[in-house]
């Protein structure tokens, strides 16, 4: 891995960081308020999406901005992509039914 890749940590207590460019498996430099200088990505993470900073067990809250932004629906390994496929809102039912890549609704019929 020669390409420099970065992610941004908003608060020290956060369990996820935001990818500042598309990440590939390998070392990721952490900017912002991170307790550690880097983490190893174990999956691809699209630009603007979240990467887990540590193992997050199912049902645990996901922390960003030092507040819960939803909860894990599966065990999330450190360094992997965190999005609709492994987490859900504590409020919004509908967003759990959207396409994980495009965000397109899958609960509206086009017929």
């Amino acid at each position: 891995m020669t390409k420099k890749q970065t992610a941004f940590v908003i608060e020290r207590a956060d369990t996820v960081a935001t990818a500042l460019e598309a990440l590939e498996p390998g070392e990721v430099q952490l900017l912002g308020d991170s307790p550690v200088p880097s983490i190893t990505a174990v999956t691809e993470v699209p630009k603007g999406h979240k990467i887990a900073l540590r193992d997050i067990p199912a049902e645990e809250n996901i922390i960003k901005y030092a507040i819960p932004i939803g909860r894990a629906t599966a065990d999330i390994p450190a360094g992997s992509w965190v999005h609709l496929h492994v987490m859900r809102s504590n409020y919004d039912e509908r967003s759990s039914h959207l396409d994980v890549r495009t965000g397109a609704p899958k609960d509206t019929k086009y017929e």
Partner: protein
Amino acid sequence: MNDIMKRTWLGYARKNGKKGIRNRLLVIYTVKCAEHVARQIVERSGSDDVELVGFDGCTDNQYAVNQIISLIRHPNVGAVLAVGLGCEYMQPEWLAKIAVEEEKPADWFFIQNEGGTQKAIDRGLKWIGRTLEELKHTTRVEMGFSDLVIGAECGGSDYTSGLAGNVVVGRFFDRLVDAGGSAVFEEIVEAIGLDWFLTSRAADEKARAELQHTYDKALDYCRHARQYSISPGNFAGGLSTIEEKSMGAVVKSGTRPIQGVIKVSCPPPHPGLWLLDSTPDPYFMDFGITNPSDNEGLMDLTSIGAHIVFLVTGRGNVVGNAVAPCIKITGNADTYARMIDDMDFNAGTTLDGSMSLAESADALAAMAADVASGTPSKSEALGHKEFHILYKYQHKEVLPCES
């Protein structure tokens, strides 16, 4: 307080004691049928200070009338021409009367009484020519940040909005409040899951009750509509939940105590940080629509007397705003470079490390002072003067009246 926040400039003195940063002549149409005449008057006036607003419906609506009146009383407005067709509910004569009470030159007419399109346009242009001369003599008065009201909302958000754009606005809002000015943020439907956070920042018990009530109303609204303020584009861009988007939005309020909640068309009673509630109140026609467009949101902020409105836009919206100049802020350096003619401010410098948050907030303060001093924002220079006034049901009281 740093030197930038001590800057002063010359504003326009208004009878109600407020000071404006522009001296606009507002042409108002009171029904869609009068729009063409009003628009022709604005376009043929040849002056950038002549601006158009209006209401399309023939049946009037208290919310819309309040909003039109708030623009007449707005400190950036120096004169008013109300143009009616002659059979609609909204009364141009009464609008002109309010302007006169504010000691602003005003006139009104019905197109039907003037004898049709051409004669009405001629009459309007004649009055505007005279009035623009008169406006050159408006008393100028020194003003600074303590006299300013600035409103902020986001639109066309992406992952940078909550990381950079809104963060820089929040830091600047702290400075504006510390300088004695007024900062107003909106979009309570983008504070889902954060009632504890907002109420923990309430300045007093009344503010706490107002914030909780407004939050509960917004959550009811979202549950009722089975829709939260988050879109496929937001998810595709990396936001996973409304809670995540909400914190990225609320961060633009900075860290100072929240003085309370204000409704659309109601100016803040005193300086400080305020939440603007633009969610419709429950009504027999159901809730109606909250913010159908960014322009409607910007109009809501203008209606409470904001001199300048901030639009934080990661993806890059191009709009401007009538009455209150719009400063467009993006946290996305690529958007800034790609849409350089439209974007006023690049907050993305805080993400690549080329600027600290404090330096970026200083730069935004300097830009706000420049625009307040008369420098056109980019949307102003491009002629973006959008407005969006719609039917909505909302009363002026924040908490339900005890009966």
